[in-house]
């Protein structure tokens, strides 16, 4: 999987909105049905997209009775509260779409069902509401499979079949329930671009995505985008109207097929990743310096993530020449089935346990190496959103310690430069080696015992009583010890934070009661309690 290595690139697409979780559809403008026109329109680049874009055109071939495949999903979800992590969190309700595929399964977006506590599925011309459960959820590619246990539900439903990658400029139709409507809506547009995109649901993963000009709005999420009776993709994200119009994205079938194959063994293993950063090798002097031929081949390895699968195999300064036999051009592209694609697309198609063969150029000598995808490069996870997990925290003496993550950053929006640096350079500076958890004193519940401690807020715990604290578990273990006092050193120049253990113990119940703290710590990110069936499948 290709990862967005810097936080900056995540911001670029921040204007993209997810299409299901908007709980207040009333504020969105009503969908305007448009008359089909006969003239084919051209693809429009985002820069030009100021003009209200493409006139939808009639599909060349009807897609059949999609009503018999489409479902409307209403999810009631609980968003964890990172500022009061002992609470269950806020209840939210969102509407999305999904469609029946073979094996009595319904495919939808992960963001439609992530964090859900209760799912209802409805279909056209049936007054019943059917409870549903999540089978598999892949937050890294925004796909999920759900199912309905009601015995007759799938009887009259028609499973949809998947096609390939549609041609540029060809017409596609998107089906769903935009803006919360209860009846199926169809919009059409053309295929504008096929490229790697940031998937904003996790906001760290990049995969292939297809840009289409069809009008897609909240409620379209998870719905099929079809051509000639076959599913070409799943509608999933776009820009809010003030950023760009007529630009929507769908998850293409290679990503969907990969997901379906991954879960075929009963669990979702996630994408695998080389976990390296690289630069293009287009400078002639640099090519000469590295002893490369003038053949436009190869990319330069910059950083090899220690926690990733390439750690013991690749090193900075290596040049990657081929991947599984595909020659890598100096701009990082390979030729796959007649199309030019980023060389990481080869890795995208791999599964956990697979390996990749690379011809590399090291110290002006050719070499062949094999990289096995056995472990996930976990440090990336803190830079993306988490779902269906309980926030980890330790509350001690009214001081709330939490590990740094994107969710934490978004909850508190800290301006502290050190905190932001630790977040953005967690991987590139390999900060995770010293701080697998970056433990932040994120908040203070005021009490007489911590009344002078406000200036320490936002600090990162380095050591306690002379002992390095690397993980939240370390912190919890240390606080369970019984010294006279805890001397907490934060990273950087600053005074130590000193806690008298007896005073903390004495104030404990009072703080718990005053702030209605149900639990003083949570060290496990385990899924929150769901129905046993769901819990088993996640």
């Amino acid at each position, binding site marked *: 999987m290709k990862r967005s290595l810097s936080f900056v690139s995540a911001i670029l697409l921040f204007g993209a909105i997810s299409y299901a979780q908007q709980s207040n559809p009333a504020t969105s403008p009503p969908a305007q049905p448009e008359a089909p026109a006969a003239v084919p329109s051209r693809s429009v680049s985002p820069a030009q997209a100021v003009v209200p874009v493409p006139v939808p055109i009639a599909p060349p071939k009807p897609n059949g009775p999609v009503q018999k495949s489409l479902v409307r999903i209403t999810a009631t979800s609980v968003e964890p509260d990172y500022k009061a992590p002992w609470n269950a969190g806020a209840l939210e309700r969102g509407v999305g779409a999904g469609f029946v595929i073979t094996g009595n399964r319904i495919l939808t977006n992960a963001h439609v069902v992530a964090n859900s506590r209760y799912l209802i599925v409805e279909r056209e011309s049936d007054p019943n509401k059917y409870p549903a459960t999540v089978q598999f959820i892949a937050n890294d590619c925004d796909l999920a499979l759900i199912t309905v246990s009601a015995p007759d539900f799938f009887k009259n439903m028609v499973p949809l079949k998947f096609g390939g990658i549609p041609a540029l400029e060809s017409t596609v139709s998107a089906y769903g329930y935009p803006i919360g409507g209860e009846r199926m809506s169809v919009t059409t547009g053309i295929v504008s671009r096929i490229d790697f995109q940031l998937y904003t649901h996790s906001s760290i993963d990049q995969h292939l995505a297809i840009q289409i000009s069809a009008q897609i709005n909240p409620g379209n999420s998870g719905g099929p985008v079809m051509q000639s009776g076959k599913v070409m993709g799943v509608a999933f994200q776009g820009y809010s109207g003030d950023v760009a119009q007529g630009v929507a994205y769908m998850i293409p079938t290679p990503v969907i097929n990969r997901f379906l194959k991954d879960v075929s063994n009963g669990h979702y293993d996630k994408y695998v990743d080389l976990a390296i950063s690289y630069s293009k090798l287009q400078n002639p002097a640099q090519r000469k310096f590295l002893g490369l031929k003038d053949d436009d081949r190869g990319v330069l390895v910059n950083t090899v993530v220690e926690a990733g699968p390439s750690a013991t195999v690749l090193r900075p300064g290596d040049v990657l020449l081929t991947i599984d036999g595909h020659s890598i051009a100096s701009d990082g592209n390979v030729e796959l089935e007649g199309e030019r694609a980023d060389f990481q697309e080869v890795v995208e198609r791999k599964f956990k346990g697979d390996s990749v063969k690379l011809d590399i150029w090291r110290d002006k000598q050719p070499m062949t190496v094999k990289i096995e995808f056995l472990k996930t490069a976990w440090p990336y996870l803190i830079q993306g959103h988490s779902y269906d997990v309980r926030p980890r925290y330790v509350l001690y003496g009214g001081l709330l310690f939490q590990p740094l993550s994107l969710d934490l950053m978004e909850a508190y929006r800290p301006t502290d430069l050190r905190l932001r640096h630790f977040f953005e350079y967690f991987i590139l500076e390999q900060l995770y080696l010293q701080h697998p958890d970056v433990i932040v004193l994120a908040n203070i519940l005021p009490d007489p015992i911590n009344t002078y401690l406000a*200036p320490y807020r936002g600090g990162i715990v380095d050591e306690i009583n002379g002992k390095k604290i690397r993980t939240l578990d370390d912190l919890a273990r240390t606080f369970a010890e019984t010294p006279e006092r805890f001397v907490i050193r934060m990273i950087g120049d600053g005074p130590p*934070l000193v806690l*008298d253990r007896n005073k903390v113990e004495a104030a404990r119940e009072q703080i718990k009661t005053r702030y209605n703290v149900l639990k003083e710590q949570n060290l496990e990110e385990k899924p929150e309690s769901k129905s046993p069936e769901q819990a088993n499948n996640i």
Partner: protein
Amino acid sequence: MHKRLFVTFGLVLVTVSGTLAKKEPAVPTPLSKQKQLALVRVNVTGQSYDYFRPWQKKAPFSKRALGAVLSKGRVLVTADLVGNQNYVELERAESGEKTAAKVQVIDYEANLALLEPVDKTFLDEITPLEITPDTVVGDRLAAWQLEPTGALLATEGLVTTVQMTPYPIDVGEFLTYRISLPMQYRENSYTVPLVKNNKLAGLMLRYDSRSQLLDAIPAPIITHFLREAESQNYRGFPSVGFSFFPTRDPELRQFAGEIGKGGGVYVTNVEPNTPAMKAGLKVGDIVTAVANNEIDQNGNYVDPLYGKIEFTNLLTAHAYSGDVIPFRIERNGNPMQLNVTLEHRDAKDYVSPPYNFDQPPRYYVLGGLIFQELSRQYLKEWGAAWQREAPQRLVYLDHFQSELFPEGNRRVVILSQVLPANSTIGYDELSYLTVTKVNGKEIKSLGDLAEAVKQPIEGGFIKIETEEDPKQIDLDAAQVADEAPILQENYGISALHRLD
């Protein structure tokens, strides 16, 4: 960081004293008709350096301001008025007569400058302003402005607070008067004198029109500046070089060996090569008195004029570089005395200099790669919100410079941007990278870089290593040299480097 937090504690307490001071009329007493106002208009044209194209200056700016006429034919203005000036002109308020002036002494940190007319007789009939150093909270000061006719426009306001605040060049904090005063807009309102009984009490530092609060550089800072300006060698306000934290937290006090309710501040950091380190101050010490003034748990001493105010005032307004100041400290509960010899810390003594005016920035252009040294002046090219807008990595390096480069005595060389050229094909999107090595040699200044590029490595290549991706940039030394004239021509680069 801690210091700033601490200051907010301080603000609350500073207003305690001064309310008993007698109210004196601040409006000028009727002047005899012949007597001339001790005010001149000051017209300044200047140009700041363009840090994105460091070989050139930006378009000229003009500022119109007022200056306070002092004794010996000198005119006092703020430094931010005349920083980066090309030409300064004095204009008599009533007659409109003009003369050129030059900057005699400038202190960017205290934001003060002295001007001297080229025509020595220009200020002759003017009775200079005397300085009154004893303004306290509750006094009324008049802001002196000029009407277009040259007549005086005086607006009176109340001194509400005397406190330590950061000045525009954020190096330490200085004594500041805060005055509640409804200023009227007039041209020339850049430097506005504040007057009490026809004597100069302060100079406007900033004004917030919404809250109608005016901050002024107070007379004690002006007097300090003038006194040093009279010596041959202006050194500037002293700095000590340590950070501190209040000791109100009883647990922290106990940890530091303090028992009871005594005062003092906890030393959190001592910067290398500073007076504090030379005097032997250590992290964890508690400073209990400075210059024989007891310090409370928040870091305030009792000033005879202002009551409680942060002790750093003792080291700025009241002390000069070279003074030896006794510090009473407690180390692990044992009282000790340290004698700190104060020094001024020059902007150039920082790893990332906090300001740079009237000096062109250093740079080195190599085959389209523009190398510069990190400075706050460079970061301020991103505007008032530079801390948010500028590349975050560079802001981080600037902010934590003493922690990240404890050895000091170096610069951070950055690859600022890349001009597209034949040698830089494929590199044109690189920017804001920090350079670690060139041709295998460690780079701690642009001078190092200039030396290192003279010795290409085997095969005639220049290898530049960066802290960030892509980690390595390689150039063909011969191609770089061949292309230099075209590069200069195409991008209008007057000189490929400036190193002094």
